[in-house]
């Protein structure tokens, strides 16, 4: 009975021992942290599966192996020494070597194991794989370095930008022209000292104001009127800011690629040029008036002599007098042209606008050249549109003069037997006049200057000494004063076609409002 009870107890103890073993084994196997048990002389006696994984050795290979096979010997010795001294080591960073000789950074912890008698029987070694942390640290370090480099670059770029900005500011501040910059919302964002001087307003009073707001300053008002609400592109438009101050305004958009960053307004002081020009025009005007009076007296005196009012003259005397008369006429015409130019330049040329038809004016001018056309045996063809051309507001005398100048040129520079074609066309908003000749044409290299004062083509000057070089300048100014445009096409030796357009009533009415 006693034996049976003892056997029963032993059986229970064995079962408990087996369960305990299973529990210890499961616990050890479950641990995700690599753990090993090393003997006091550093032989690996036990490892868990996580330790097998990290080292790459299987259990049979690793058990019985000296621990320094997976650690640097010197580091292991220090670790063992520290463990023996302190009883433990916490989180010491060491490199371990795998079976494949791969280095893995780990954090190693140890704890000393002693027998009941206090003898050191070994120690547990726990590893924590730092590979991911180290990689993250490395990535962070790289990112930090990259960031610092970027910051350095940014700082450098900022320095350069600052330097550039300072340069630009210096240029703007020292620029002899006034400069205004409007932002995309049409608010003034920059005023240079020269512009302050032009308007006699401090920068701080103008900055951040819209054009409408700026209009309240009397000196800015004339400029605001031409800039309108939305700033439009302007090229060299003259504006009188105040007495004795005329500026030439140009507006250019500030673009960065497709994006519009605002508008730059350049204010160039042309007061002095205007004064010189005015003095010159006045001089020409006075001179011309002073010359015209004696020339008129000469004209009428010669006329009286030619008409026999002062007695009979010989044929030879007549011949001389006629030549003198013609020369005098040319002189008078030149002076008249010069007076027209001075009036144009003084802005007092257009003074009799009436609503009328252009066709009869063309007919009249052609008729006035009938004798010359016959003399040179030139065919003049006048083509009118089938539909009636509407009336146009114009200064009849001036338009007549413009057509006359164009026809005069066409006949003058077309050789005998040539052809001149005049065409009137109605456009949507304007009437177009063109006159085509089969004359000498304008040399290509001189075409850009054709509408400037005193311009005469080199080929024309060789063949014809007459002509003042003012005709086309007058034509252009007459047409532009009517709100029209002039242009031409020419080929040397083949002929030239001049065109001008005049706006039909509505447009012209609008145009006149500007004056």
């Amino acid at each position, binding site marked *: 009975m006693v034996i049976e009870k003892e056997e029963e107890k032993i059986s229970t103890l*064995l*079962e408990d*021992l*087996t369960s305990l*073993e299973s529990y210890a084994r499961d616990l050890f196997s479950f641990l995700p942290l690599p753990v090993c*048990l090393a*003997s*006091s*002389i*550093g*032989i690996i*006696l*036990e490892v868990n599966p996580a330790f097998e994984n990290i080292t790459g050795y299987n*259990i*049979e290979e690793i*058990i*019985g192996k*000296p621990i320094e096979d997976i650690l640097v010997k010197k580091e292991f010795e220090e670790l063992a020494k520290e463990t023996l001294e302190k009883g433990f080591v916490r989180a010491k960073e060491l490199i371990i070597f795998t079976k494949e000789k791969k280095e893995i950074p780990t954090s190693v912890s140890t704890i000393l*194991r002693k*027998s009941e008698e206090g*003898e050191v*029987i*070994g120690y547990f070694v726990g590893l924590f794989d730092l590979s991911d942390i180290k990689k993250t640290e490395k990535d962070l370090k790289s990112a930090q370095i990259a960031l610092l480099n970027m910051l350095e670059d940014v700082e450098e770029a900022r320095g350069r930008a600052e330097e550039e900005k300072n340069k630009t500011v210096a240029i703007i501040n020292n620029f002899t022209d006034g400069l205004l910059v409007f932002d995309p919302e049409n608010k003034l964002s920059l005023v240079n000292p020269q512009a302050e001087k032009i308007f006699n307003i401090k920068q701080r009073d103008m900055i951040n104001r819209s054009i409408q707001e700026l209009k309240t300053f009397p000196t800015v008002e004339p400029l605001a009127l031409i800039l309108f609400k939305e700033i439009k592109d302007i090229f060299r438009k003259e504006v009188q800011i105040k007495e004795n101050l005329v500026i030439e305004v140009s507006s250019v958009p500030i673009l960065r690629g497709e994006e519009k960053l605002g508008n730059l307004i350049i204010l160039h002081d042309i007061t002095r040029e205007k004064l010189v020009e005015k003095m010159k025009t006045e001089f020409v005007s006075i001179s011309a008036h002073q010359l015209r009076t004696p020339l008129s007296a000469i004209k009428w005196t010669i006329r009286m002599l030619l008409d026999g009012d002062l007695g009979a003259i010989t044929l030879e005397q007549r011949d001389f007098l006629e030549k003198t008369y013609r020369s005098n006429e040319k002189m008078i015409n030149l002076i008249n042209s010069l007076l027209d130019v001075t009036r144009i330049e003084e802005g007092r040329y257009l003074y009799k606008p009436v609503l009328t038809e252009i066709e009869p004016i063309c007919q009249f001018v052609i008729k006035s050249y009938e004798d010359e056309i016959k003399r040179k045996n030139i065919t003049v063809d006048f083509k009118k549109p089938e539909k009636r051309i509407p009336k146009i507001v114009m200064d009849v005398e001036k338009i007549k003069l413009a057509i006359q100048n164009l026809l005069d040129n066409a006949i003058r520079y077309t050789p005998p037997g040539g052809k001149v074609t005049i065409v009137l066309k109605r456009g949507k908003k304007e009437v177009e006049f063109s006159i085509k000749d089969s004359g000498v044409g304008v040399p290509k290299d001189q075409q850009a200057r054709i509408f400037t004062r005193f311009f005469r083509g080199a080929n024309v000057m060789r063949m014809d000494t007459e002509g003042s070089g003012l005709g086309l300048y007058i034509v252009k100014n007459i047409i532009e004063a009517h709100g029209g445009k002039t242009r031409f096409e020419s080929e040397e030796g083949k002929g030239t076609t001049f065109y001008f357009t005049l706006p039909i009533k509505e447009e012209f009415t609008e145009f006149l409002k500007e004056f």
Partner: protein
Amino acid sequence: MNQELNQETVKKIMEAKGEVRGVTLKTDMEFILKEKGEEGLKKLEDELEKLGQLIKFHEIKTMDFYPIGLRAVSLLAIKKVFGFDDEKIKEIGLFATKTTLIIKLFVRYFLSVQRVFMKEAPRLWAKHYTVGELNTVELNEEKKYGIIRLKNINVHPIVCCYLEGYFCGILHLIIKSSRINSQESKCTFRGDEYHEYLLKWE
């Protein structure tokens, strides 16, 4: 030695006196699982059943005692089923030292070569087997060898082979050397009075 393994021969082996701890059979199981998997273990159990020994390895209690004959029969069945040679049987012995619970419990006493040979070896034997005595005859640490003697146990020569590996494994746990060897120099099955093992290391 190479007598045919059948129920008759097994019955004779099983007549041997003494018992062995279940842990030694468990380490056989772990070796087979590692090498051949569950399928291999099943084959082994089938073979043992054919030999008249119904053993379910998973149910063996590590610390319980089983007839000492099973120590030999298990190894003989392994050898037969998987065609293992003596070296492989020796490997099973070596493997056992690295996985057996008894060694894990015993390593606390593996403080020096001297202590293991002189004091712990007989105790370690007694932890596994109820018969036989293990003693150290000679230990020369300078010349790096030791002789141990095993008396009063005669199960089967395959156990001698297994023990060669087992002693070798124990040495691995106490000596830092990559070249350790053990060899049975005397054996009762060769006419000697006892078994003797020469253990050498470099």
